[in-house]
């Protein structure tokens, strides 16, 4: 039939559900939009449904941007995360301006330099914007040389100042740029969620699949294990496990250790979803048919059953990522996760744990804002995916 032709047409505006009457499904004279829906692949139907979920779409775009920034963080961050500027310790964030003190508009955005004085009583540094010192922001300047992914030597950054340094999110106690550190930190914080979920994915599908497919005693044992793990408060268990990581491990090993620890508990939710789907699908006609044809069990599972609920699993996995990110942040914040030379959002927030510091420099909480945005975006995206995962339901 005209299957190929119709599915290759551009996507219609909004998937029409009741454009025509039920009479014309097999009729070649059916309205083109309806046949497009009838012949569209499952993934296409899901995309149509997902697209209608505007909030989820926004969440997806935000996450895409965050991961791009994390992937090329060396380029997006204006400075190296460990460079110290001892002349600007705990400097407040600079505002990006277009209009100067005299009311003149400048097309090129600029920041004001700092004027610093030391309070004679408390010895605190007080910074005020120096309106005499206008510093235009330039794009793609040559900055400190760096190696993209530790491989490609480069020296252009996304933005910077012609002279001096810009601190759009202020500096920390050692005079390091909070913005640069947050951008570098996103690489660790965001990938730990992804790798963790990947691990969770594997364990969850494996154990959930085994439980759901074989049933009986196997199912019972796995179910009990899940129940036991659910009864233990996650954070305390994570804390105990990560405190047990040997102190002499390298940063990379600690990173993978934390990831494994996070997925050690995370798989239970996914395994339950997979098990439920397996139980439901096991009796479906196409599975019975495959079995009667003598198809091998692994082949039944991975060729026939997994694809039919993969979309659900992807949605569940998306919803599991924020938990992982929050877990890493919490552990590092408490000082038993990743440790300082490594930059992650939790490590950055650790500085804000000291209340005296926080009262002086509230901008140290900025990385927390990014945590919230990312978790929010992932939740919204996951919700949208879950709604779209079953395109045949109403």
């Amino acid at each position, binding site marked *: 039939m005209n299957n190929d032709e119709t599915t290759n047409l551009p996507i219609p505006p909004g998937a029409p559900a009741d454009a025509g009457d039920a009479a014309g499904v097999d009729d070649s004279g059916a309205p083109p939009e309806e046949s497009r829906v009838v012949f569209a692949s499952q993934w296409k139907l899901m995309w149509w449904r997902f697209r209608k979920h505007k909030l989820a779409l926004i969440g997806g775009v935000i996450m895409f941007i965050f991961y791009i920034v994390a992937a090329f963080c060396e380029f997006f961050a204006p400075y190296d995360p460990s460079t110290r500027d001892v002349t600007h310790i705990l400097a407040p964030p600079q505002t990006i301006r277009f209009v100067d003190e005299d009311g003149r508009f400048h097309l090129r955005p600029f920041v004001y330099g700092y004027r610093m004085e030391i309070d004679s009583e408390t010895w605190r540094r007080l910074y005020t914007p120096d309106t005499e010192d206008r510093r235009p922001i330039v794009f793609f300047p040559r900055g400190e040389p760096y190696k993209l992914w530790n491989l490609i030597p480069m020296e252009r950054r996304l933005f910077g100042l012609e002279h001096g340094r810009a601190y759009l999110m202020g500096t920390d106690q050692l005079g390091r740029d909070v913005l640069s550190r947050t951008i570098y930190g996103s690489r660790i914080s965001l990938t730990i969620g992804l790798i963790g979920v990947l691990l969770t994915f594997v364990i969850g599908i494996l154990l959930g699949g085994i439980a759901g497919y074989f049933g009986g005693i196997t199912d019972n044992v796995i179910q*009990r*294990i899940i*129940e*036991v793990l*659910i*009864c*233990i*408060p*996650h*954070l*305390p*268990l994570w*804390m*105990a*496990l990560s*405190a*047990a990581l*040997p102190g002499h491990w390298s940063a990379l090993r600690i990173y993978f250790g934390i990831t494994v620890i996070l997925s050690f508990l995370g798989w239970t939710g996914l395994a339950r979803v997979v098990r439920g789907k397996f139980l439901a699908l096991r009796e479906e006609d196409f599975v019975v048919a495959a079995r009667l044809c003598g198809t091998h069990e692994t082949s039944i599972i991975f060729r026939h059953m997994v694809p039919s609920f993969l979309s659900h699993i992807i949605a569940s996995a998306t919803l599991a990522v*924020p938990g992982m990110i*929050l877990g890493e*942040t*919490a552990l590092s*914040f*408490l*000082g*038993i996760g990743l440790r300082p030379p490594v930059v992650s959002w939790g490590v950055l*927030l650790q500085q*804000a*744990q000291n*209340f005296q510091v*926080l*009262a002086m420099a*509230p901008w140290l*909480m900025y990385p*927390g804002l990014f*945590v*919230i945005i990312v*978790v*929010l975006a992932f*939740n*919204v995206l996951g919700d949208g995916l879950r709604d779209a995962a079953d395109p045949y339901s109403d």
Partner: protein
Amino acid sequence: MVHFILRRLMVMIPTLVAISMLVFFLIQLPPGDAITSRLAELHAEGAEVSEAQIAALRARFHLDDPMPVQYFRWVTGFLRGDFGYSIVQEQPVNVLVYDRLGYTVLIAISCVLFTWVIGFPIGFYSAIRQYSASDYTFTIIAFLGMATPNFLLALGLMYLGHRYFGTTIGGLFSPEYMGEPFSFGKFVDLLKHLWIPMVVVGMAGTAGLVRVMRANLLDELQKPYVVTARAKGVGSLRLIFKYPVRIAINPFISTIGWMLPMIFSGDAIVGVVLNLPTIGPLLLSSLMTQDMFLAGSLIMIMSTLTVLGTLISDLALAALDPRIRYD
């Protein structure tokens, strides 16, 4: 009913045994044992420790017994209400935990109540006014509440309290009541401090429950019996409260089980930030000093409370929901 309770209690036992094994495994996990870290500490203080003293310490805590024997001694101690001995702090765990446990349970209970008192009306309102401006507002707030890590919320509140009210938020008592015997004044002071950890720890759970309540009630409101009742002219509020709410309210009871681990997790980190006299900060400090027996006992206590909470919510659910059979 009695039979049902007994059977549920029987099911609890293997769960608790499995948890205790896992926790005992945790205790053994760090390289070295409690004595090694205690020795390191003593050395740092400049104290000389002789071989004989080490041997005496090891013998005192039975550290050279085979693993199964050690496990058995530890677990049977639990049954007798003896939670072991903190080698680093040189005190029985019971003494260290006693006060803190009370405050932890207090915070947990107030969190559950807070979650219900706030979550129920908002979820209810959002469902009956679906897609209204207030529904969207509550939905956004709920999503924000779920996305904000509780320790960040605590930090934010502390900062705001300092910035705008000039007070330091934290702890459960004002300095003048610290160490005082319990009195009415102290109780009022406790209430003044309690609401912050309550809101901070309960926030995510409340937000989640609002979403669940809304979804459940919406599902229920579309069912044919509601439509029928409406068609017959039953008043709308009475109609909603008669059956749909009673069914949608199930999660309020059944989620105590998973709310408790969340609350204990929240306490573990918020307690550190807000400087609460609860189990959380004690757990962190025990982990920092590798005082694994203390840490293990604390995790075991939290897990046991969770299992008990699940049991209570199961029983309450069975009592309240006629669809659940006892056999």
